[in-house]
């Protein structure tokens, strides 16, 4: 009893601390990556005892600054809701990771340990429920600030997130139909199969258009450039305009956590999760007949490493998109969402079901 509880708590802490640290590193990575893309150097002055570590201490300096700043609540605003909003945002962004599998089932000391915080049989619904509830953070922040700009920002944010959530739902239906499960662990395990003995049956292979649409809708869901209309910090100012200090910091952290969540979801649903092509429980089995046997622990470590690498790659890719594309206008955003992405996801669904019906 105690041991299994320890294992569960350990897994929760591992995922939580891992995600929070990756989010902190992403704030640094965003600045450095954009700098490298634009032939600049980026933040590199923060140092401890003259040791600069390529500006990594900037993250520490920023968080100290955030904590030390005045925590301002607008005089006519609702103090309780104003304080609650950033916590709602961050909380619902963070709990989504519970259903993301980061490794296969491992047998250690006579126990079966699933490398996933909780293997829900409706894992994907759980994640989207958490993401939808995250909208409350945006709406509350806009509403409780008693500021028209913040209010309009919150409205923009919620309508954008609702619109693209429908597209996300429609795109993943194709994946669910192919892998015939809602448990993310089962979906990842099913992606270990091979098509015609050669191509790994990853989601991106069987659902290429679904993958693209999911990425578009996912970026819109994170409210980052090119879909950063709810925030638009420089011109149209968004829902957290009345926030300062660590409350603002929480909203910023939520952005990065959501980026990681979308990266993790793309990895899990479309890029095989922890799967490595041709790697099964006892080692590599290449199509040419060449095999390389590995111990179970080595295989498990490789799989966890593969999952982390993929998530990190998609974080990098989302940052690349963020620093490449200009922002959409609001009508363009809605047109793209309702007239292009959503109908295409429905067509994709139709095509997928037709193919499945014909293959049966």
């Amino acid at each position: 009893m105690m041991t299994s509880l320890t294992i569960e708590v350990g897994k929760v802490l591992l995922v939580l601390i891992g995600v929070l640290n990756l989010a902190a590193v992403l704030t640094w990575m965003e600045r450095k990556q954009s700098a490298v893309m634009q032939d600049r150097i980026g933040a590199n002055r923060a140092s401890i005892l003259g040791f600069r570590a390529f500006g990594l201490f900037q993250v520490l300096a920023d968080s100290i600054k955030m904590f030390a700043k005045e925590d301002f609540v607008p005089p006519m605003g609702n103090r309780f809701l104003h304080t609650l909003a950033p916590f709602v945002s961050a909380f619902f962004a963070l709990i989504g990771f519970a259903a993301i599998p980061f490794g296969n089932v491992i047998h250690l000391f006579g126990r079966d340990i699933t490398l996933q915080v909780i293997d829900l049989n409706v894992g994907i619904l759980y994640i989207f429920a958490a993401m939808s509830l995250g909208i409350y953070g945006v709406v509350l922040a806009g509403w409780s600030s008693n500021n028209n700009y913040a209010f309009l920002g919150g409205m923009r944010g919620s309508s954008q997130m609702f619109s693209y959530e429908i597209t996300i739902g429609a795109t993943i239906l194709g994946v669910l139909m192919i892998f015939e499960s809602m448990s993310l662990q089962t979906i990842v395990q099913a992606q270990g199969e091979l098509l015609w003995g050669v191509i790994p049956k990853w989601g991106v292979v069987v659902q290429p258009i679904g993958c693209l649409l999911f990425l578009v809708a996912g970026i819109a869901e994170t409210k980052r450039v090119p879909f950063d209309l709810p925030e638009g910090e420089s011109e149209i100012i968004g829902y957290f305009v009345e926030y300062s200090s660590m409350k603002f910091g929480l909203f910023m952290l939520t952005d990065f956590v959501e980026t990681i969540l979308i990266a993790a979801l793309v990895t899990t649903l479309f890029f095989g999760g922890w799967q490595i092509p041709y790697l099964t429980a006892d080692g590599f089995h290449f199509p040419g007949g060449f095999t390389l046997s590995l111990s179970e622990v080595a295989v498990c470590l490789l799989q966890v490493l593969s999952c982390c690498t993929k998530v990190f790659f998609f974080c990098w890719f989302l940052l690349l998109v963020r620093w490449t594309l200009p922002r959409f206008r609001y009508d363009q955003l809605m047109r793209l969402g309702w007239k292009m992405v959503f109908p295409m996801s429905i067509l994709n669904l139709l095509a997928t079901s037709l193919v499945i019906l014909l293959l049966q």
Partner: protein
Amino acid sequence: MNSRELTFTERLYIIEVFKGLWLTSRHFFSNMKRHLARQLGLNRVERGAVTFQYPEERRPFSHRYRSRHRLTKREDGSPRCVACMMCETACPAHCIYIVAGEHPDPHIEKFPIRFDIDLGVCVFCGFCVEACPEDAIRKTSCSKILAYQSTNSPSSSSAISLNKGRANVDGILILS
């Protein structure tokens, strides 16, 4: 404003998005390669960024660059300047201040007791050099015009001054 009609592929947007991503990621990887080579000491010449880390690193200027003033001397070491006030008159920023005195040599009428140029006001146009009939003032390619402090003391509000009849260039700019 007349903007060009978008072609069909441009209106599809997605192809243009991938073109843009290709461009920025190419920049990312080529710059990253240069940064890594520099960090590992493999290639010290190519830079991954156009930025100069200012206080530690100086941008190399052309030899033709002309900024700080220099007062030329005669063979005996006294300033060549005859305090004719041509440069002071020509100066559009009014940053030159000269106090003339009588020179003991009858062939040279005057010499400057004080010759101050406030580099905090100077616009580095070079008109003083053009105006000088005696070739007494020139500009050098020295780009080190900086100070950590500003001071309001009028006696030290000059960067280039004449002390005891000798042309003297002291190394700092004092912004007044």
